[in-house]
């Protein structure tokens, strides 16, 4: 029994996490110590007991390295104790980022699947587009984010006369769509080509139409690839939305919180925004994983 517990994966992960938290607390002592000694020096405090010193170092207002309990307390204070529609609430900012992420991810996934279908079914599209899509994986497309946000924002507010908030939302969604588009397109091309020639031949002997071949063979065999690339795509979408909040003087969203925190030296605010962004990423990937399981069960796949 005890043997089984120490050999289990969750136990191992738990131990590693616990060690990480300990290292974190330990690292906070030397990193925050110089500031604390400055404070003691100004207050004229000498011979501060070590326990009090450690307690002070772990609870500074603007520490170099905030401790885990400070970050957790900040997240708790700005989520549970503030109504979610207030700009002080992290849930408010998380929702602004999440909504742009989801909109962009949806658009990017649909476009990526559409392009993959075109590439698989049309020789000319395959030959002219596929090399460019593969090459685009090696270039830092996230560098385009400020350009898209600023130009998009100007076009949406200027030419199209939208108010600033929907314009910001749309510009961020475009970046998110753009970032999730490429992994999904590449994965789906692989997936739609996954059926073996012998399986395609079998459907041809049944005189199946191209549409039947697509829906009964290509699409089901592409699904594992689709979900794998959607996990990559949704993470990229979130990064896109966060980075998309850096320019244009956005005042809301997790990216704006990061930027504001770095302007005013509010380290605890930076860390808590970072943690909430990470939790969002984990939830998004989890949602894709759960959808995958659900779809697999509906399709009668054997659990792997």
């Amino acid at each position, binding site marked *: 029994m005890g043997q089984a517990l120490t050999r289990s994966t969750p136990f191992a992960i738990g131990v590693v996490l616990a060690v990480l938290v300990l290292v974190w607390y330990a690292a906070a002592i030397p990193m925050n110590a110089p500031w604390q000694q400055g404070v003691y020096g100004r207050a004229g405090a000498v011979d501060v007991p070590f326990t009090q010193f450690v307690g002070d170092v772990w609870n500074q207002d603007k520490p*170099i390295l905030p401790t885990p309990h400070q970050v957790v307390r900040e997240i708790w204070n700005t989520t549970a104790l503030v109504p979610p529609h207030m700009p002080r609430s992290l849930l408010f900012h998380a929702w602004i980022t999440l909504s742009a992420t989801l909109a962009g991810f949806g658009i990017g996934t649909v476009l990526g699947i559409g392009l993959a279908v075109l590439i698989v079914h049309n020789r000319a599209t395959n030959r002219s587009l596929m090399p460019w899509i593969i090459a685009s994986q*090696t270039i*830092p497309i996230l*560098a385009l984010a400020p*350009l898209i946000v600023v130009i998009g924002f100007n076009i949406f507010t200027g030419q199209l006369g939208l108010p600033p908030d929907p314009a910001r939302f749309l510009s961020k969604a475009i970046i998110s769509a753009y970032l999730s588009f490429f992994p999904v397109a590449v994965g789906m091309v692989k997936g739609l080509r996954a059926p073996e020639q012998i399986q395609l*031949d079998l459907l041809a002997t049944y005189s199946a139409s191209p549409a039947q071949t697509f829906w009964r063979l290509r699409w089901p065999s592409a699904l594992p690839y689709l979900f794998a690339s959607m996990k990559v795509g949704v993470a990229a979408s979130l990064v896109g939305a966060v980075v998309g909040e850096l320019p244009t003087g956005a005042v809301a969203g997790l990216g704006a919180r*990061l930027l504001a925190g770095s302007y005013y030296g509010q380290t605890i605010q930076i860390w808590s925004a970072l943690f909430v962004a990470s939790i969002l*990423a984990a939830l998004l990937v989890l949602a894709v994983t759960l959808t995958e399981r659900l779809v697999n069960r509906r399709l009668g796949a054997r659990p792997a």
Partner: protein
Amino acid sequence: MSITLASQKPLAPSALQSVLGLLVGLSGVLALALFLGMGAPGGLAPLAIFSALAALSLLRFAHPLPLLADGALAIFGLAVILFTLGPAMPAPFWAGLVAVWLATWLLVDRLSLEIALRRLPEQPFALIIPLLFGVVLLVGWEAITRGAGVPSVILPAPSAIWARILTSTGTLWADLQQTFKAVLAGYAIGCGLGFVLAIAIDRSGFLKRGLLPLGSFVSALPIIGIAPIMVMWFGFDWPSKAAVVAVMTFFPMLVNSVAGLGAAGAMERDLLSSYAADYWQTLMKLRLPAAGPFIFNALKINSTLALIGAIVAEFFGSPVVGMGFRISSEVGRMNVDMVWAEIAMAALAGSAFYGVIALIERAVTFWHPSVRGA
């Protein structure tokens, strides 16, 4: 009754080719009609000739045109568009542009079919087709931005971006150097630490079970968000960007290396243990070479991640040099052509970085099927 198997399906010109052929002709006719309505074509005379040729290509429905004719038509059209392009183009120009676009599409479709039929060699043509697509994209971009007078703060013409690259090579080079200091330092530290830690935890099943799920999980997180923290810790200059890059590249390397170290087959390990090889001998002579493809996979993923990390980290504060700094500050000043020039440099640098890693991979893992087959 005969059955046509998918593998034996006759490769015939698709219906798409007929439709494209028809559309090329019709847009040529339309451009000609617009020219006639306009009176003297003036400087657009070459375009009128192209439109007439496109209209004549309708003869393909009476007698099939050779591939060369379609090729000549498309290339001539692209040249004519660039030659006649000026500000505020009249309607026939746009009809002609559509005809050029359709003619190139038709050409690409015909070329792809010829390659599939093995009537044309794979080697130069598999490269020519995407290049043609790129040329059409650039010509279309140039024609629309200049011909329709799109403001350069929205989308500058490729020629304007190129001119900007030529006039600001000094700035671009300084930015590239500044950013690549962070990229290379962070890449080396992140990949090196990931690799060393992978070897260290490889002997412990417990650590592998505990660290690997975390490592794969971290790759889904927006690590780039640590940039403001790193700027606070390491200052505005490149070391803080290198730190971001190191953290971003560490986890892919760790996860891939651990997977690679487990890739050597049981039979090969048994062989080495029958030779009484010790741990280090097995590692150096069997397991590390077997891990090569996995490690290079991580190195390639990381080459892109490193550039992204360094550029985006500069958005959070940097000295007045660097690609990310230039992009964010020139966007603010609406110098969009400079932003595009910087992005073109970033794309070039990113592809070159990736290409170098891929070349080293070919030299080191020459034995791997994926390299041998290529």
